[in-house]
């Protein structure tokens, strides 16, 4: 079955440390890939997206993600985490934009805690 996996439910990092959040997908073709962030009591905010082309994409708030077709992965990274980055992060995919609209399938999320 098609799915999105975020293997880490919780991650704790120190402020200033680097961060990598993992995301793997299982689809026959390369889907369209997204990372969203959700702060407590807030809706989802798009950090970045990948459709095609350069496999390293830059997003807002200093985040980047790298698409690796061979590993079916789209991991999110940040070189230096700030306390305000504490939130829940969701990886999401759209299998394709033809016919079925842009229905997002989400991973289960990774809760990020930042230690001062």
């Amino acid at each position: 079955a098609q799915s999105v996996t975020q293997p880490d439910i919780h991650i704790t990092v120190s402020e200033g440390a680097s961060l990598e959040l993992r995301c793997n997908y299982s689809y026959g073709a390369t889907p369209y890939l997204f990372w969203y962030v959700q702060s407590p009591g807030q809706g989802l905010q798009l950090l970045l997206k990948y459709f095609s082309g350069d496999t390293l994409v830059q997003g807002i708030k200093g985040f980047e993600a790298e698409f690796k077709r061979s590993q079916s992965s789209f991991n999110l990274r940040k070189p230096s985490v700030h306390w305000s980055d504490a939130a829940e992060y969701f990886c999401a995919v759209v299998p394709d934009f033809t016919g079925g609209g842009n229905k997002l399938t989400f991973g289960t999320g990774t809760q990020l805690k930042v230690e001062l």
Partner: protein
Amino acid sequence: GAGVSQSPSNKVTEKGKDVELRCDPISGHTALYWYRQSLGQGLEFLIYFQGNSAPDKSGLPSDRFSAERTGGSVSTLTIQRTQQEDSAVYLCASSGYNEQFFGPGTRLTVL
């Protein structure tokens, strides 16, 4: 306000009652989506509207759930005869092309 708005922000209801949740999308966006976020199921797609086309209802969990979109703008999600398992945050998103913008959600609690 340029973003997606949802009302009410919180709704507490009794089991068996009907509820209506409202979504105001970004002006000009032709696509509108409803998702549900719950502890047990995570984030899941419910229904999708695109312009004047028939909605994609493939994610609705039961026939107690329905939604409409009037005039290609505001949407209402209706849950009839609410059950405790309907307790969740209901998120609305709108899209002009390939990026979805989410509202803050409505937290529904069924007692």
